[in-house]
């Protein structure tokens, strides 16, 4: 007699070592801020397996387009940024909130504590938000952020990057990270980028220039896919 087997999702897989950065004294602020005690391994209960799910009405029609949030256009190279959000098994992550923030084209954040002597742009706030579509795709329109110095060490400069915040389907899939640009000469000497121990995992944070996504006479296209934690499948007999 044939058995009726359905697949019930099991626990989220643990992230292999080398992917998420450990404490790293090359990034000076970690010295007093990165916890030192070993993490306590706990089981995944409903509290870990659930997480915030966002209603669409919180997303404004221009939230995804950072070039159209003010009266005029921001200075800088326009870019289209598109990507696919999936889990480790390649399954799309639909309907999840994606939030970004970034410096303007001259490398200055619209934030009161950014003291870098570069001009602010009255037409650029540097924040965007969207929700992945039913197949897990997101899309932003923005400008290429500039490089900027920071106080970590003598002559320290950050490679160009865009900050990303994602939720995914549970408390455990939350991801906050930075997307980098291809061919940036500052990447090999940046302590934050290089805090990721596995060099292959580091490359996952670099977007690809995409001529197919580039809009003629208007904007460059970049593609960056995001992979969230996936779950083991537990075969269940009905």
């Amino acid at each position, binding site marked *: 007699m044939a058995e009726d087997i359905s697949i019930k999702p099991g626990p989220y897989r643990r*992230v292999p070592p080398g*992917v998420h950065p450990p404490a790293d004294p090359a990034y000076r602020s*970690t010295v007093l801020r990165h916890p*030192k005690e070993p993490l306590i391994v706990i089981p995944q209960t409903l509290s870990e397996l*659930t997480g915030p799910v966002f209603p669409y009405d919180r997303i404004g029609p221009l939230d995804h387009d950072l070039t159209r949030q003010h009266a005029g256009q921001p200075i800088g190279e326009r870019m289209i940024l598109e990507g696919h959000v999936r889990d480790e098994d390649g399954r799309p992550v639909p309907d999840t909130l994606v939030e970004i923030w970034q410096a303007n084209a001259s490398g200055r954040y619209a934030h009161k504590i950014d003291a870098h002597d570069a001009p602010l742009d009255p037409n650029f*706030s540097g*924040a965007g938000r969207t929700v992945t579509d039913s197949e897990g795709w997101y899309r932003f329109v923005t400008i290429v952020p500039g490089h900027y110095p920071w106080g970590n060490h003598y002559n320290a400069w950050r490679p160009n990057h865009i900050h990303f915040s994602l939720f995914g389907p549970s408390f455990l899939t*939350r991801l906050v990270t930075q997307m980098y640009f291809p061919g940036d000469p500052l990447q090999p000497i940046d302590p934050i980028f290089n805090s990721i121990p596995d060099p292959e995992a580091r490359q*996952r944070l670099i977007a690809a220039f995409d001529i197919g996504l580039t809009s003629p006479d208007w904007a460059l296209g970049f593609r960056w896919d995001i992979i969230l934690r996936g779950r083991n499948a537990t075969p269940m007999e009905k």
Partner: protein
Amino acid sequence: MGVSPFQTVGPYFDIFLRRRVPLVMVTSETPGQRIAIDGVLYDGAGTVIPDGLVEIWQADAEGRYAHPEDPRGASADPTFYGYGWRHTDAAGAFHFDTIKPGPIALPGGDPQAPHIMVSVMARGILTRFITRLYFDDEAANARDAVLQLVPEARRHTLIARTTSPGVYQFDVRLQGSDETAFFDA
């Protein structure tokens, strides 16, 4: 496919929080015991951290999560929003106005003590650290399976202290002799 690595939230994350609607977890309609959570985020030198991102996630007053994974999720309280976030202020402080969550069942059916999931990020933290907030006035803490996994000497770092009726203090210490117990889940 390999998971995308974490990178620090950095010092400028208020830029994206400003684009969110203001946080409201409870309305006048929300059933349950109103509580306030106050906390301060400290570094290893005992200095307050004025640029931390503290997030919470919790069940409603009946212990239901508004999420498809919860078998009772479809009947979760529609007037309650279980996710909260705060940028710590100049004094390293964060504050949430919420309700006390009900007990949450384990897969076997045993209840866990009421608790709130807590996530901490900041400049100088390259990933995200997670822990749980428990309440000092809950007898069920003594039988909570997750809390029992925390060495006894560190368990108090997870227990919010009543400072006045319905007001709980939950400080988070990233390092030091009272370092908050963080989890790998």
